[in-house]
């Protein structure tokens, strides 16, 4: 736990330094209204506390300034306590672009990203497991060779490219034979005119983004599972189990699958940063209102408070998931006890 906290602190220092390294620093983007008075900039700098040395600024960013005297009107004199609470208490400041609290903005987007990611990973794993198992049992069969070839191909297609092609095929070209509408929607989480919770509508909107996001992972996990199954199958105890007369399926479920699946859980957690990064393509192409797209927009407009917050929250999610993976690993594999 202490390590995790230390890791997050280290990351926060790193990100803070990175953003302050940017030209113009974190006030960039404030000048979107092209007419900004130089005096006003000085005033803003004092108001934001940007006239202070960087370590002080970092500290304020971290723990806020509501415990210290500040110059809230920028006139050069201390005139009361600050209002910032610091990121430790969830105050990531205000977006330059919308002047909304960053946490509000992220709060609107994060659940959508989690929703898409969880479904994508579930689909990827649920498809990859049987493929991997069959490939392993029927090693060098035509099924195995086909699937292996496809999985190599699947990993070689850039995600944005795949998404574009899927939209073309399933939205622009193929039509529903009964209604004449496009077979699948081009994007969004729901239809414009959907009322209330409509499961079917949601599923239909998930198909293309999930397919785009999952293909590479299906390929990767099925290959992984295939090789780990092969690894296990060739172990002595499996041979022994077979020799004892256990049926193939019995051996599989009791011994092989168990030992092959455990590392997959860890792998899932380790892959999370990539899934998070890759979400940017899926969310942009399929108009998915997620956090990665918010980040992309913020990067284009140098909305630094949003960028910092997304990275910090993203890193926290990744660290948390690594932790969960460790615990799961222990839960799934009785030989390991997690202290």
């Amino acid at each position, binding site marked *: 736990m202490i390590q995790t906290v230390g890791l997050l602190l*280290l990351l926060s220092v790193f990100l803070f330094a*990175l953003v302050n390294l940017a030209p113009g620093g974190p006030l960039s983007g404030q000048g979107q209204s092209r007419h900004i008075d130089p005096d006003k900039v000085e005033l803003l700098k004092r108001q934001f506390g940007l006239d202070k040395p960087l370590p002080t600024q970092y500290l304020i960013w971290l723990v806020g300034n509501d415990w210290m005297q500040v110059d809230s009107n920028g006139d050069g004199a201390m005139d009361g306590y600050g209002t910032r609470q610091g990121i430790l208490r969830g105050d990531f400041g205000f977006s330059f672009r919308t002047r909304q609290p960053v946490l509000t903005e992220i709060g609107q987007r994060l659940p959508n990203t989690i929703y898409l990611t969880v479904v994508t990973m579930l689909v990827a794993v649920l498809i990859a497991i049987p493929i991997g198992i069959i490939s392993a049992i029927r090693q060098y069969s035509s099924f195995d060779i086909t699937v292996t070839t496809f999985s190599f191909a699947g990993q070689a297609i850039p995600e944005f*490219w795949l998404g574009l092609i899927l939209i073309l095929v399933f939205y622009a070209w193929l039509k529903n034979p009964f209604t004449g509408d496009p077979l699948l929607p081009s994007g969004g989480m729901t239809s414009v005119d959907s009322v209330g919770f409509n499961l079917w509508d949601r599923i239909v909107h998930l198909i293309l983004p999930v397919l785009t996001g999952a293909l590479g992972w299906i390929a990767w996990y099925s290959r992984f599972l295939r090789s780990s199954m092969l690894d296990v199958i060739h172990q002595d105890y499996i041979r022994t189990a077979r020799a004892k007369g256990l049926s193939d399926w019995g051996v599989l479920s009791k011994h092989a699958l168990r030992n092959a699946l455990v590392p997959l859980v*860890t792998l899932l957690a*380790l892959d999370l940063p990539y899934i998070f990064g890759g979400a940017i393509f899926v969310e942009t192409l399929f108009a998915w209102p997620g956090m*990665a797209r918010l980040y*992309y927009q913020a990067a284009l407009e*140098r909305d630094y408070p949003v960028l910092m917050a997304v990275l910090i929250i993203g890193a926290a999610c990744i660290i948390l998931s690594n932790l969960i993976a460790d615990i799961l690993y222990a839960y799934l594999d009785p030989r390991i006890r997690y202290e």
Partner: protein
Amino acid sequence: MAELSINETSLTNEYTQSASMGTGVWKRFRRHPGAIFGIVVITILIVMALLAPASPYNPEASDITSRYESPSLRHIMGTDALGRDLFTRVLYGGRVSLSVGLMVVAISIIIGVPIGALAGYYGGALDAILMRITDAFLSLPSFLVLILLSAILWEIEIPMLSGNSVLTISLVIGVFSWTTFARLVRAAFLSIRETEFVAASRALGGSDARIMIRHILPNSIGPIIVEATLEFGYAIIEESGLSFLGFGIQPPTPSWGNLLSNAQEYFMKYPWLAIFPGLMIFFSIISINYIGDGLRDAFDPNKVLNKVGEV
């Protein structure tokens, strides 16, 4: 002198060992059909990129009279929005994309291998510190940070790094790709440093640096090569992703990534503009992955699980 001669002997032994290991690797590698396919394809791609200047067309000179020509004998991949020969641009783009891949691998090895080696060899506090730094990098959503870094570097005027050049993009990707190398090398060092021959050379007074470079490193070369191969592919994909989002290598310098992302607007109308660079990315990645797979099997015939086994 005596010490040295013994030392030399052990070294010779080791070389013979690795030489026989080398032949074994090559034998096993040859038996992997995918890997051979990969080697052939990637060699063709590299040769094509090297021969790019032999093209009769200039990759950056426009020809307004022949815009958007579909593939023909004169322009085998057609022409682009400025009438430039797409085949020539794809060849030059290959130079850029493949060099990005190579440079990223080089940068990650330069950063990752020493970190992993030091951590694995010395252990203790140094290991803890280095591994926490590695963890920190692994905990970042790396692609998002890539975007931020290239956005920031874009605006700073640093000689050789301005305007998202090949070097800038490679550096940015490389700085976030070394962690796997560090982990692999650390794991290898951890296991090898306890072996007898390391203990022997230490007893013979070999310096730490010598032991690390001449004795342990050659024995952990397998996973490094496999990972380098895969990283080469990731780098090409990441560059094309950055280009798609507008943060990659800037035109008129072509890269497979920016050729592809420029084409997406007219995908339906001028499909060849997107198909050919897309195919180049596809074939390079698939062949690299096959090579990586072949190498993995070849280096470690008993344990196919190399990459994740160390986790």
